[in-house]
């Protein structure tokens, strides 16, 4: 039973990381190393919070209506995609059009996104009278709805439908990046923008679209964290930021392959919760155990650099701005 319980926590935790990592894989395939993932995930979470609160509490609550579950889902999705997409657009504008350094811009986006999210999240909580007093019950339940027939099946009864969407999206992305013309073009842009440009591919457009869509996917991870993991009750404890960095690490761990990211994210989730299921640990040794996912990432990082196999390398022009006249 302990194992099943660990598996369940691992999948829930892993799904947050998986969304973040899938967005970052798409972004990195276009040659943009976006270190703003924690910020984008936070923006996605707060966007979902602000917009679905506007519907569930402000609109329905004050008019005495019963919130419609479908509209709750749509408003939350709209908010999350809008906020994280705008974050991605800001990053794209600075790094692609203004050619600012990608690492520095990404870090700024993390600082800004996390702060903005926690600022508005905490301010909204305070408005309603503090922690625990504001929870979007209808929205949260709509997202945590279990696939009919699985309500009593072990592990599965705890998985909301966003979990299945994430798996489908990962498989779709794997196919998209390897089997479609657009996907191959995108990879060409990330490997060698000058070559792609010469072949008639619009490098700027590909980079913009991939980065913004990637940001939206990462933002969904934040939304899933908010509506499912914390059950739509805002917390500003830095957990989402730490998960965002794990998502960046997962991209390396999965060696830029979305399908591999599925099981890898669950492994990360399991490593993060292992301390909870190992008996006889006191609080201090638990802290040591929580190092595990980071230690494993470092091990993979070192292993990948030692092996130097062609299949597991980052996109060749990752982190570099492209300027046609500097070819």
């Amino acid at each position, binding site marked *: 039973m302990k194992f099943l319980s660990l598996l369940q926590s691992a999948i829930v935790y892993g799904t947050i990381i998986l969304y973040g990592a899938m967005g970052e894989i798409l972004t990195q395939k276009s040659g943009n*190393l976006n*270190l703003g993932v924690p910020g984008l995930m936070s923006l996605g979470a707060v966007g979902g919070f602000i917009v679905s609160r506007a519907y569930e509490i402000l609109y329905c609550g004050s008019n005495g209506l019963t919130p419609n579950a479908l509209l709750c889902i749509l408003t939350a999705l709209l908010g999350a995609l809008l906020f994280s997409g705008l974050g991605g657009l*800001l990053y794209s504008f*600075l790094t692609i059009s*203004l*050619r*600012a*350094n990608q*690492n*520095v*811009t990404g*870090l*700024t*986006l*993390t*600082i*800004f*996104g*996390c*702060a*903005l999210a*926690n*600022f508005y999240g*905490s*301010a909204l909580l*305070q408005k309603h009278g503090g922690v625990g007093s504001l929870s979007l019950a209808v929205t949260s339940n709509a997202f945590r709805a279990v696939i009919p027939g699985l309500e009593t099946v072990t592990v599965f009864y705890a998985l909301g439908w966003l979990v299945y969407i994430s798996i489908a999206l990962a498989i779709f992305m794997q196919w998209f990046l390897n089997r479609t013309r657009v996907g191959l073009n995108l990879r060409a842009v990330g490997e060698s923008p000058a070559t792609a440009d010469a072949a008639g591919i619009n490098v700027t457009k590909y980079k913009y679209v991939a980065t913004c869509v990637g940001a939206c996917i990462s933002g969904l991870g934040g939304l899933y964290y908010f509506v499912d993991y914390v059950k739509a009750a805002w917390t*500003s404890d830095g957990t989402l930021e*730490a998960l965002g*960095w794990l998502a*960046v*690490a997962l991209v*390396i761990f999965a060696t830029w392959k979305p399908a591999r990211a599925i099981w890898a994210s669950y492994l990360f989730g399991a490593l993060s919760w292992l301390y909870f299921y190992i008996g006889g640990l006191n*609080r*201090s*040794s638990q*802290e*040591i155990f*929580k*190092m595990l996912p*980071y*230690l494993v*990432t*470092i091990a993979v*990082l*070192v292993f990948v*650099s*030692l092996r130097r196999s062609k299949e597991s390398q*980052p996109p060749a022009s990752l982190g570099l701005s492209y*300027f046609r*006249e*500097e070819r």
Partner: protein
Amino acid sequence: MNHSHEPLIHIAKRDGIVWWKSWLIRLTGVVLALIVSALFIYGISKLDPLKVYGAMWDGAFGTSKRAWVTIRDTMMLLCIGIGLAPAFMMRFWNIGAEGQILVGGCATAAVMIYCGNAMPTWIMLVIMFAASCVSGAIWGLIPAIFKAHWNTNETLFTLMMNYIAIQLTNFLVSKWESPPGSNAVGVINLNTQSGWFPSILGQQYLLNVLIVLALAVVMFIYLRSSKQGYEIAVVGESENTARYAGISVKKVIIRTMAISGAICGVAGFVNVAGAAHTISTEVAGGRGFTAIIVAWLAKFNTFVMILIAALIIFLQKGAIQIASQFNLNDYASNVVTGIILFFILGSEFFINYEIRFRGGKS
């Protein structure tokens, strides 16, 4: 030539720019950032936009105590920036300042706890300084050795080292916690002030300022005028050029990261012994990330870093003051930091590139 195929705007790299022009562009960026920050603060507080900066000034420099705290925090950010400068000049992405500060802070706290009240303060200060240097250097060396020998990606390696340091700090906090069950260490040596920075000329934080300014001067000279500083610059420009010139790239990477980590460790020492007098993950508190941007924007010039660090801390203190006046939370300060950094980053484009419009003179 058919002009209809000429694009509306044409971007060209500048060969060089007069110094006053580049500063004018940066100044414009800062002014725009200040306007947007004021709008954000106006949005949350509905305070008269003109009064916003008055209130911010009051928050940062309103009393002599506030002014000293502002200076102290500027020095802390500057210290980390100084530590990061040599690494970034070498194009080594040390994202791990956060962790290096924490291990330096942990080492300092360990000395305060285990050796406190057993020896004179000045001996303790020397031991704490050395301990924080060594632990910060070790934290910087681990990714550097892998980078030098196997070209392991340093951005992600140093990032992961941050989280290991955070867990290590949490582990030590639960070991040293007092009173038991509080999950905090509390002020160390509260009654004896053993291991605390002594007041100089009646100023509690003057020693912080002196240490960091000394580091700024030394680092400026080291990077500009020493042989090792030159080697760092060459490795940063091109590792192949460095190899042809007979520079041992591995040695330079490892040595530079030891220095970088050590200074970030010292930042932890300055904060624990000179300001916080306790240990928690707040000793770094995200400053390691902000300082990366400070170091990058200052183009590794430690004196320009003072200006940028001061600007950021001023805005943060001001935003915190306004947020507390209006019963809002402190996250406002980092929102404002983000805004200013975005604008300075964007303004770099107009310094490096020139925009010509269709039909304009070339």
